[in-house]
């Protein structure tokens, strides 16, 4: 070799390590590069190696599934032993409509009940007090025990898990319990979840379910947890929700942080009430959004599991390993779906669902492709179920537990997400905990700022959304819009039946049950959820229970920060 020819290059080539050589070639080939960040604001490098994994935290080597710190999953067998519960949200029209849709989805492969009530129910009203046009358009109109019985006809609630989208005061569970009582089903066999029972998430992000004042909702939730522990022991009364906050704009790290802070708040409230951590923590469940940033979502879940495992032991004093398990339901993100070229949403939902599966979820809802056009049609819902069936049965995603564990990137990102989540939780702690942080509007302001940031990124084209700000094509959206509205005649008949039923029930019993609610509300040692169950048995309606509790506990006003 002629050393006189470019000696410096020759010398560099000898001294460069493979890593430095790659870095040099990468820089030269890429030229100017815009920095890449994930949604939570963590800088993302082009390549990860062992040095990245070891830089953060002390969690190397990895633990095993089913063992603290649960990074790799809360059960030893995870999806290889038992796949996630396939839980599709349904809610539609009259109880008869709901029942028909439920049974058809169960034939298609749904394995559990999930009941979404009409928006009038969410707002705390009976059907005879709201605009008729809106009845049953987004959920089932269930106002009393009879309606619950009809909704669940032919479904053995002693065998099949039921999720009720049922925030305080939890009338739907009360109706379910009395329906079970009438059928002779032992309450101790009933399993399921008071889905979205977390009043804080509603207050912060989604006024949708906000029926009672903040302190009133807090009281009813604690009574609900205590009552279920005693009488419906296999029911999960506490579902801590990150989904609303992420849908409302929180970054994945913020959503996880606020959810964990909410769980701490609720757990500390339970402890202050005299409950033992190991009595209620095993029944805590979590509900998260799964957005499109694939690895960020996986890291979010792995980090969340790890943090909760530590908090339950060190801060809340749990001793039972079951108290430390971070059980969660995931729902693919509706905000990510587009009205433009809506069939693309099937691809988006698939990627989101995979992130949830690799993130180690216990239960999964996949969105229908047509949710950005209207409430999901039966056709759209069936594709959403099929997407799960394909992921579970055809693609072998469940063969190996935590298949991305050990990936330099996933491990480094899990560590970084953990740091980020902890830093946001510190802000909440410094504000006096989650209850105070939402009462003052701190959390809402952070969330609004993140929502605005995201929208600006989409508007500027920094965040590509296929069909919206890139790859646009002319397409007639109406070709994909299948709008299902309840049959007005069937809804009118439902209304007439309700009116007649109200007239025929015992006014004396109704008054007695309402008084019982008030007396219990006035007595801090009484259990309000017990009084609500008694009210359901005495034929109180949902609207009557909500109205009375609003009067006694204070009316909820949404706190709005623009």
């Amino acid at each position, binding site marked *: 070799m002629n050393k006189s020819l470019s000696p410096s290059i020759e010398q560099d080539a000898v001294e460069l390590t493979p890593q430095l050589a790659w870095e040099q070639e990468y820089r030269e080939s890429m030229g100017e590069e815009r920095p890449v960040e994930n949604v939570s604001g963590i800088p993302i490098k082009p390549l990860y190696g062992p040095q990245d994994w070891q830089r953060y935290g002390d969690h190397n080597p990895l633990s095993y599934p089913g063992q603290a710190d649960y990074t790799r999953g809360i059960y030893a067998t995870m999806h290889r032993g038992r796949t996630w519960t396939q839980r599709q949200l349904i809610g539609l029209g009259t109880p008869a409509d709901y029942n028909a849709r439920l049974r058809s989805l169960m034939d298609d492969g749904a394995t559990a009940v999930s009941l979404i009530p009409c928006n009038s129910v969410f707002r705390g009203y009976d059907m005879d007090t709201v605009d008729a046009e809106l009845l049953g*358009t987004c959920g089932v109109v269930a106002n009393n025990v009879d309606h619950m019985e009809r909704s669940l006809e032919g479904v053995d609630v002693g065998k099949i898990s039921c999720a009720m989208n049922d925030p305080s005061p939890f009338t739907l569970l009360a109706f379910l319990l009395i329906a079970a009582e009438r059928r002779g089903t032992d309450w101790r066999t009933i399993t399921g979840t008071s889905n979205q029972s977390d009043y804080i998430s509603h207050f912060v992000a*989604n*006024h949708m379910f*906000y029926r009672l004042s903040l302190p009133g909702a807090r009281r009813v939730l604690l009574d609900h947890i205590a009552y279920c522990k005693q009488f419906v022991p296999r029911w999960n009364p506490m579902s801590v929700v990150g989904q609303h906050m992420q849908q409302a*704009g929180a970054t994945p790290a913020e959503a996880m942080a606020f959810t964990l802070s909410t769980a701490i708040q609720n757990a500390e409230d339970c402890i202050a009430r005299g409950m033992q951590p190991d009595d209620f923590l095993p029944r805590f469940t979590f509900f998260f959004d799964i957005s499109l940033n694939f690895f960020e979502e996986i890291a979010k879940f792995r980090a969340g599991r790890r943090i909760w495992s530590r908090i339950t032991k060190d801060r809340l004093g749990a001793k039972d390993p079951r108290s430390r398990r971070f059980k969660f339901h995931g729902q693919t993100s509706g905000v990510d779906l587009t009205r433009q070229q809506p069939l693309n949403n099937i691809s988006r939902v698939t990627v989101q669902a995979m992130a949830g599966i690799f993130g180690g979820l216990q239960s999964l809802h996949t969105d229908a492709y047509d949710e950005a056009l209207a409430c999901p049609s039966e056709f759209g819902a069936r594709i959403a179920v099929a997407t799960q069936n394909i992921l579970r049965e055809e693609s072998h995603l469940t063969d190996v537990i935590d298949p991305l564990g050990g990936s330099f990137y996933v491990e480094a990102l899990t560590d970084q997400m953990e740091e980020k989540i902890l830093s946001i939780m510190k802000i909440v702690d410094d504000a006096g905990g989650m209850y105070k942080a939402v009462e003052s509007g701190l959390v809402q302001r952070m969330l609004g700022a993140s929502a605005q940031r995201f929208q600006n990124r989409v508007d500027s084209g920094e965040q590509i959304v296929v069909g919206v700000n890139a790859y646009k094509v002319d397409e007639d959206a109406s070709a994909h819009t299948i709008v299902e509205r309840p049959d007005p005649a069937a809804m009118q008949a439902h209304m007439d039946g309700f009116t007649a039923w109200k007239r025929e029930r015992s006014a004396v019993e109704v008054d007695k049950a309402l008084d019982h609610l008030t007396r219990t509300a006035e007595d801090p040692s009484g259990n309000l959820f017990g009084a609500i169950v008694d009210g359901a048995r005495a034929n109180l309606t949902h609207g009557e229970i909500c109205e009375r509790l609003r009067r006694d506990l204070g009316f909820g006003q949404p706190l*709005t920060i*623009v």
Partner: protein
Amino acid sequence: MTAKDFRPRVLVTKIGLDGHDRGSRIVAAACRDAGMEVVYTPPWQSIPAVVKLALEEDVDVIGISSLATDHLIVPKLMAALHEAGLNRVRVVVGGIVPDNEQAQLIESGVRQIFHPGTTLDDITTQISTYATEARLAAAETGV
């Protein structure tokens, strides 16, 4: 009135039963950033409450955000505005409105429906245009 000293007055609100307000908050903030006077309400406004507010605040445009079928009662709002003599006020709807349910809104007098994917720039520009229209209509009729 010159174009220079004209500040559109817009009411951003939600009627009906739905509480999802991410969209309405973002649009309200964007209108404010674009130099408009913004009256913003939390969700669950009744139709009479919206009419009353529109009168009291003398708004040019009402923006209704609807994500969960609340658009179905927009024709009722239009009738109530008409009844209150607020014909000059322009109404726009943003959110999820199925294609086959757009016509009934437009027929009831809604000026435009902003579907998901519309940029904030487009929304604020359009609202400004409608506000100018409304103000000119007021100047003509003296209402």
